[in-house]
């Protein structure tokens, strides 16, 4: 399936804009989403870490993405 993934902060620069399109296999996990991202945009490997939020919550690596999920790349936060 093809999904949209939003990006903030340095992730926006790495993917070259606020939204990227990813081709995922069916029942892809967050872990696989991260792999696809790192392959498509090697600069993700230079980050301290990054997380994926699904529908405005952090999700673990084994969460299975379903059609309609709102995916967002969360690079290391630095608020406050």
């Amino acid at each position, binding site marked *: 399936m093809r999904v949209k993934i939003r990006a*903030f902060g*340095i992730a926006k620069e790495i993917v070259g804009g606020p939204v990227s399109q990813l081709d995922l296999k069916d029942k892809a996990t967050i872990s696989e989403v991260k792999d696809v991202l790192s392959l498509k945009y090697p600069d993700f490997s230079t980050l301290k870490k990054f997380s994926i939020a699904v529908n*405005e919550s952090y999700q673990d690596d084994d969460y299975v993405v379903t059609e309609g999920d709102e995916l*967002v790349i969360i690079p*290391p*936060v*630095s*608020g406050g």
Partner: protein
Amino acid sequence: MQEKIDIQISDQELIIDSCYSFVQHEGAGGNALFVGSVRSQTSGKKVIKLEFEAFESMARKELRKIAEAIMDKWQALGISIHHRTGTLAIGEIAVIIAVSAPHRDAAFEACQYAIDTLKVTVPIWKREYFDDGAIWVAAHP
């Protein structure tokens, strides 16, 4: 009881009195506040300005989680968290956290928990601008 949680993300100047007024409570033994402002230097490098970008809808949710944990764990009477976004000059206020609680020790602990947790979980990103470029804070190892 009225829910005493006040979460705001705003590109306008933050006002300490707004946060204090919100948490004020007749039964409060003390109000602890944290105010974070923009530093003029980072690791010896002169900062010109900075920008905060937020994933606002999720940031609000994560801030509310912090506030609810505080109401629960420290029996706080009120909590107000205001975070700034957009461009900030040196000395401007980036974040204000105010907590009122029956006992002042609890207010201090809760306030410290809030800022510590905010810096780990809330999707807000700081970009520091120098004479010779800019960096996303904490992005790289």
